[in-house]
């Protein structure tokens, strides 16, 4: 089932800059890569692992400085889509994504967020976050272990530091 979306997403949001210095951008990317603040936003089971488990004492995402869970999209850098997106929740996931301030990234955690996962056949499930928002890193699993999620974060870090890693 396609998500009701009038503007025809997925569509990479176009970044504009007033001034652009490539070297400054490099420095800033370095800062960005080490300070990815996730939007404290969990949809389903995966959220327990992705948002709580990784922040828990054992896996401690804070070591990388990524633990600053922001409750509002304005301050968040990465949207961790952890869980099933349903037809009902898709509009607000999209809205949250759109309300996030640039630059922003998205990690899809778990089968559900990648493709609808176990519920892909259901009448009420959106088959994956990529149907509505551009995803940067996919972390398969159901739910993935917190280690795997940290790995996803590190992959995102690599991508921010050097956007070319994706093109291999």
């Amino acid at each position: 089932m396609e998500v009701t979306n009038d503007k025809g997403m997925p569509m990479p949001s176009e970044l504009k800059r007033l001034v652009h210095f490539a070297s400054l951008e490099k420095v800033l990317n370095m800062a960005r890569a080490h300070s990815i603040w996730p939007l404290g936003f969990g949809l389903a089971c995966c959220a327990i692992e992705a948002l709580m488990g990784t922040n828990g004492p054992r896996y401690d995402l804070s070591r990388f400085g990524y633990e600053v869970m922001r409750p509002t999209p304005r301050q968040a850098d990465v949207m961790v889509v952890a869980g099933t997106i349903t037809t009902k929740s898709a509009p607000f996931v999209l809205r949250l994504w759109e309300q996030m301030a640039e630059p922003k990234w998205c990690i899809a955690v778990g089968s559900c967020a990648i493709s609808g996962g176990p519920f892909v056949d259901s009448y009420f499930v959106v088959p994956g976050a990529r149907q509505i928002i551009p995803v940067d890193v996919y972390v398969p699993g159901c739910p993935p272990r917190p280690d795997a999620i940290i790995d996803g974060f590190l992959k995102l870090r690599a991508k921010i530091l050097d956007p070319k890693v994706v093109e291999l």
Partner: protein
Amino acid sequence: MEKKISEIISELKEKFPQIKTSEETISVSTEDLLGLMQELKNSFGFNYLTNLTAADYPADAKGKGDGNEDEDDGEMEIVYNLTSVYEKLYLTVKARVSRKNPEIPSVFPVWGGANWQEREVYDLFGIVFTDHPNLKRILLTDNFEGYPLRKDYQWVGGRK
């Protein structure tokens, strides 16, 4: 325990001669439902509506359900699981409605717990609970079409 349940059922049988009974299950028509439920709650202490759900038995699945289908289109069965919290008694009540015109009185006046459960059944099966105070879709979006748990509900999955 066993004995007590059977006592209750035989007592009920006297009061409501139309009901069909088996061990812990009572089948009742929609007209008698409310009266029976009131009786169950007030006289027999079934103060707790554990579960309320429905199942769809369309006609083409004739014989697959455990009841006999008279109508062409089949029936839907509403199942009430009752509990007496203090006496620790358990009872199942079943009622059938036709699929064409699924209407049944709400038991919300008897047990408040029916509120959301009936809404859920309405949402997923389209069974109308008359006199329910707030019969709206609860899980699905308001503009959702169809009742997904009916057997004839058609949809397309998202798999590529």
